[in-house]
């Protein structure tokens, strides 16, 4: 192994502000040549902003100094020149084109070898690609095969090879969650390839949620929290618990005083061994008047759980009962009929019909109720809509305004009104406070508490652990589609949740 001499990357005073909000403040980072440097932090801690500043996608705030292999990047540098400075990136979605061959993918955006009449020299292309793949110890991947035919693991290797090919004088490779969709044995082979890269003297930044992988692969760790650097340590000097504490930012004791948990004993929704696209053999019970949180890392299946219980994904196993009666959930209509509401994530796509009015959006579910004796009772509907806008504080109070013209917070309040203003037993919310300002967020959370006191069982799926901790009676933590554990009212803390979420093997 070559001794880590000059820094592959040196960052000083990197800040990034978005419209008054600081996503990164004054971060310093050093990556040695020949080392794997892990970059850790919770969702929203600033990891991806940092990577995007390096790739030239974001322009850092003035005053930052980024040096790659001793060369200072100009402030105006953009994504197109990243490779020429020796920076290479492999993002989570690998960015390969499945309908092109391995070789074509690797040479895309470079200048492929061409002959007379601009004819692509296929054989030369393949040879170039093969050399890269062999360097990564993967001569088994045929450069002439289509990328779409390869396994995900092989595609990851191709993406790696392409990134390295682009940065011929590569000094720094950034890997953003490369193992997210790999099996354990495939992860090991990827690690071999990464080690080979470092042996050639490249520096590697490795971003992952999986702490055991980090501990196996990386030499040093830098942790970010709320846009600030918590610290850099060598992996050897950190215990697993110490690492989690750095990421979460609090010692491992209870933080929030436990309120007296009201006894919720009457079951409303019982799921027994349900399975779906990501969810595996999951059982849970929601009681009357209870707010149950669902936490977990990206891709753990928490969003899918909501859609599964709402009939929007096919149930491949198990059963769902509402008040002891089994319900068949083939489509959202079945769930709605059974008294289930769901406020979906990605409001612009799933929650609202942008080119419809606020009133039409709010009353879509009950359209039929206003149709009597062959006519739509417009005035009656308008009266209901106005009352709802008052109750849920949707502004401005103009029922005929197109919902797309409202702020995100007001759109979401209208969506909430649409789903809560009915005779319901179970309310599922998937990231209801996404893209919503603080004021509206407080109102939305207050509405959830209100609906729970009405006797509705609330399932609150969220990335935002603080919201869950404050609002929920108990929190179910998912990992890899299964319940990794449950955090009860007495000991619900951020740490406990993160511990469970980061746990790779579910102890059964």
């Amino acid at each position: 192994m070559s001794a880590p001499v000059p820094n592959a990357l040196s960052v000083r005073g990197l800040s990034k502000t978005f419209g008054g909000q600081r996503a990164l403040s004054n971060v310093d980072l050093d990556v040695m040549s020949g080392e794997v440097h892990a970059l850790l932090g919770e969702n929203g801690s600033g990891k991806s902003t940092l990577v995007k500043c390096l790739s030239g996608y974001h322009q850092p705030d003035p005053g930052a100094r980024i040096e790659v292999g001793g060369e200072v990047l100009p402030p105006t540098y953009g994504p197109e020149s990243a490779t020429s400075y020796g920076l290479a990136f492999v993002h989570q979605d690998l960015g390969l084109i499945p309908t092109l061959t391995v070789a074509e993918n690797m040479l895309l955006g470079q200048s492929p070898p061409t002959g007379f009449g601009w004819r692509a020299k296929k054989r030369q292309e393949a040879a170039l690609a093969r050399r890269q793949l062999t360097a990564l110890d993967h001569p088994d991947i045929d450069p002439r095969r289509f990328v779409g035919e390869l396994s995900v693991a092989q595609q990851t290797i191709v993406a790696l090879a392409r990134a390295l090919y682009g940065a011929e004088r590569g000094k720094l490779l950034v890997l953003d969650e490369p193992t997210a969709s790999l099996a354990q044995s495939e992860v090991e082979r990827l690690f071999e390839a990464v080690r080979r890269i470092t042996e050639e003297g490249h520096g590697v930044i490795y971003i992952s949620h999986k702490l055991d992988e980090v501990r196996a692969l990386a030499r040093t760790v830098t942790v970010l929290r709320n846009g600030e650097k918590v610290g850099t340590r060598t992996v050897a000097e950190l215990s697993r618990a110490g690492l989690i504490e750095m990421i979460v930012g609090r010692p491992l004791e209870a933080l929030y005083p436990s309120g007296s948990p009201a006894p919720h004993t009457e079951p409303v929704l019982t799921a027994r061994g349900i399975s779906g696209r990501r969810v595996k053999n999951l059982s849970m019970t929601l009681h009357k008047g209870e707010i149950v949180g669902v936490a977990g890392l990206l891709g753990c299946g928490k969003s899918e759980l909501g859609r599964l219980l709402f009939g929007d994904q096919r149930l491949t196993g198990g059963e769902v009962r509402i008040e002891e009666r089994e319900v068949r959930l083939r489509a959202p209509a079945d769930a709605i009929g059974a008294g289930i509401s769901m406020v979906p994530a990605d409001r612009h796509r799933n929650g609202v019909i942008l080119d419809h009015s606020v009133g039409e959006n709010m009353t879509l579910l009950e359209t039929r109720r206003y149709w009597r004796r062959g006519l739509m009772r417009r005035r009656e509907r308008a009266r209901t809509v106005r009352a709802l806008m008052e109750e849920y504080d949707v502004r401005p109070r103009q029922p005929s305004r197109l919902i797309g013209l409202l702020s995100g917070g007001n759109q979401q309040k209208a969506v909430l009104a649409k789903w809560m203003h009915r005779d319901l037993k179970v309310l599922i919310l998937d990231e209801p406070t996404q893209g919503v300002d603080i004021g509206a967020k407080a109102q939305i959370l207050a509405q959830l508490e209100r609906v729970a006191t009405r006797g509705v069982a609330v399932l609150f799926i969220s990335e935002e652990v603080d919201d869950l901790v404050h609002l929920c009676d108990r929190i179910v933590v998912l990992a890899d589609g299964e319940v990794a554990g449950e955090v009860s009212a007495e000991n619900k803390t951020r740490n406990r949740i993160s511990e469970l979420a980061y746990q790779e093997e579910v102890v059964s």
Partner: protein
Amino acid sequence: MSLTKEQSVEVTPGGESGPRGVVAKVPWGSLTDYSLPAMLAVLVAAFCILEPQTFATVQNLKTILSSNSVVAILALGALFPLIVGEFDLSVGANLGLSLILSTGLASRSGLGAPEAIAVALIASSLVGVINGVLVAKGGIDAFVSTLGMSSLITGGVVWYSNGETFATGIPHGLIVLGRNEFLGVPLPVWFLAVTVAVTYYLLAATPLGKYLYAVGGSRDAARLSGLNVPLLTILAFVVSGFLAGVAGILQAAQLGSGSPSVGPSYLLPAFAAVFLGATSFRRGAFNVPGTVTATFVIAVGINGLESIGAPFYIAPVFTGAALLTAALAARAFKARRTA
């Protein structure tokens, strides 16, 4: 990221100038708009003044109304798939199918007028069912599936008619539909009036109409609101097929014969009317009154220009220009509405 999204949503065209519609209407903010009927009135008035002898006659009015009822009914059919966010490029060919069946079955197989008409309507509706299933269940892009269907029908029509026109043995019961009058108004115009009334009622005053517009607005949000999106999509194609069938029968009745080459040329005028129609009444949304008004704006424009001596190729030029103008206008409205 979410911040910038929010900001872009809050950019309200004309919204800063206070509540709309109180003193003066903010031109981009209002959703109802009567520029299309106004344009129709201006066109009619202008040609009446320019050509009092040829244009401004009762007979010409009747001709314009009854001959364009076919296009208007076809356009009202094409409207439905467009509302659910798809489109049906087979309406022209489907009109041809109905035309050739209603004349051919009578002329060649000796069926009576009611039977021939029934078979034609069923066939055209079936085409709609197949289109709908291909798009909604088969997941095939509407462009490909309805274009393929269009070619298939056109070929089938030529095969059935052997490329010849059915001109003899057309039953009186069919021809009457195209030539007779009721209360001084030609029968095709009555058919159009009924179609307008029914489609307008369906779309503007029933839950079904709301659901169709909801599917067109956001398929995902509609699905998550419990709507059966595939079924609604298929239904829209069935309406499109059925009305293409009605239009084909009326065309057969007016021509008094069945030619295999008539259908496809109706596609563009129908689409031009629907798109141009979306610029008025419920602006930015495909709608019934807009579609009908637009049909006659185009018809009067062409008829009037011909009567003041425009060359014979004015019709396709005028129609194409109307479609492009409408598409550009619709895009601009959409951008403003959802900016």
